[in-house]
């Protein structure tokens, strides 16, 4: 069976099964949209009071927020379920996945492919495009290319972080929440103008967890803004290299985790 065929079969069945429960799906989707709206409302209320946050105006912050939400939304749709790996480990369900001739990461990814997570993607994309229009984006071939690449590179970075968080659960079954600081915390940092962070934090969320490279740094290029210390404008182009680097680490960690796994005695 080819990989493409496996992907089609696995994801196709999930999509069909979720479309079957319409009311539940619609309320789930509305909930997701509301979460994104409320998160952005936090920034909006602050900016309504003070004018600029981290040196950015509301439309500029909206570009950062929209781009970050879009990137995280894509990663969360595909790999968000890895967060629940410890549940599979505890219940012994992981063994049944291991014996199937399909890569485990693909199975986990499609196990609960939650279409409700489309809510974040749709709102993020809408906000990103509209805010770019208002905030003064001047399209050149280079900036248009970056505008398209940035959310994909960001999604790859978050995907790698989610995979690392999942892999860590092979060692820390109870410590699932530990990884949230880097995944959901990374999302929080990515959707915020990074100039608000003190230097040690900015360094950590750039060089260790590359969250500032997901949305804030590309926005500096897209809107031609100067960056703060540690994040000059050119770091906006560092999304793809950062994604490759984080995926290399994530893949190694994942393989080590699966090798370490000895089963729940099932």
């Amino acid at each position: 069976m080819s990989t493409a065929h496996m992907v089609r079969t696995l994801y196709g069945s999930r999509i069909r099964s979720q479309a079957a429960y319409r009311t539940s799906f619609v309320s789930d989707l509305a909930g997701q949209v509301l979460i994104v709206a409320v998160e952005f409302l936090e920034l909006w209320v602050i900016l309504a009071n003070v004018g600029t946050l981290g040196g950015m105006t509301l439309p500029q912050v909206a570009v950062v927020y929209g781009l970050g939400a879009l990137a995280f939304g894509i990663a969360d749709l595909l790999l968000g379920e890895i967060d629940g790996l410890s549940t599979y480990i505890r219940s012994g369900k992981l063994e049944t996945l291991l014996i199937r001739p399909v890569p485990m990461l693909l199975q986990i990814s499609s196990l609960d492919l939650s279409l409700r997570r489309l809510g974040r993607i749709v709102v993020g994309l809408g906000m990103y495009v509209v805010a770019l229009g208002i905030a003064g984006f001047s399209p050149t071939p280079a900036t248009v290319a970056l505008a398209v690449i940035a959310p994909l590179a960001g999604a790859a970075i978050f995907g790698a972080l989610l995979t690392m968080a999942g892999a860590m659960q092979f060692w820390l079954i109870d410590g699932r929440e530990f990884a949230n600081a880097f995944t959901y915390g990374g999302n929080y940092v990515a959707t915020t103008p990074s100039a608000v962070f003190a230097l040690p934090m900015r360094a950590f969320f750039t060089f260790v967890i590359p969250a500032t490279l997901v949305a804030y740094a590309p926005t500096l290029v897209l809107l031609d803004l100067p960056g703060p210390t540690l994040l000059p404008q050119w770091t906006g182009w560092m999304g793809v290299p950062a994604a490759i680097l984080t995926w290399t680490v994530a893949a190694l960690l994942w393989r080590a985790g699966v090798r370490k796994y000895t089963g729940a005695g099932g």
Partner: protein
Amino acid sequence: MLAYRRIAAASFRQYSTYRVATAAGVFTNTIFGFIRASIMLAAIGSAGGELNGYDALQAATYVWLGQALLAPIEVFGTRELALRIRQGDVAIDLLRPVDLLGQFYAAKLGRSGFLLLARGIPPMLIGALVTGIALPSEPFSYLLGASAVLLAITVAFLADMMVNLAAFWLIETRGLTTVYMAVMNLLSGFLIPIVWFPDWLLTIARATPFPSMIQTPIDTLSGRLSPLDALPLIGIQVGWVAVLAGAAVLMLRAGVRSVEVQGG
């Protein structure tokens, strides 16, 4: 009474056995505290040092108290009762010789007690060292603060129970829980102080029980409000406890009448 005390004690013990999970929670709450504090402090910096009655120290206190209350209040909601209703296990809970809401409340108090001590206090101490925190000067404020926290936990518990009880009619409540969580996080003042809201949103927030869950205990404990100003807010909390308790009891009764447990 003894039965409820035992449930609470068992719930406290149960949570205290998850040491790694507690440590992980403390770590994550601390990181989120620093992210939230950075945003608040940047906003206050842009505003010239003071924003709607909050200076830098009070804003930092606001964040750390909020992070301390997050786990005991359970700002992300619970799903246990809803799942028990869906699976029919609620029939067993109803057969027990203690009141259903009482059982869950006793368990909640035990859990919250542990979470407050083990997950709330450590990030606050770290926050106090890094950003500093403001504490009330009046000894009476501490007593009021403790009451406000207990009432806040009770209001949050009752509202959360009502969301769970909706499972009698909705069966699947995940979407409702998500909607509730989003609204609660905003209107309770968990994300930003409600006095920063534009007037229309502030009016909406004040008409709901949500500020009683986070804003009131924080304002009372941080000494931002004098005991005299805090008292009416605590009165509002008591009022919401009464209203929500009545509503939850009615909902449970109606739900039990409509319930149909399969394979009984």
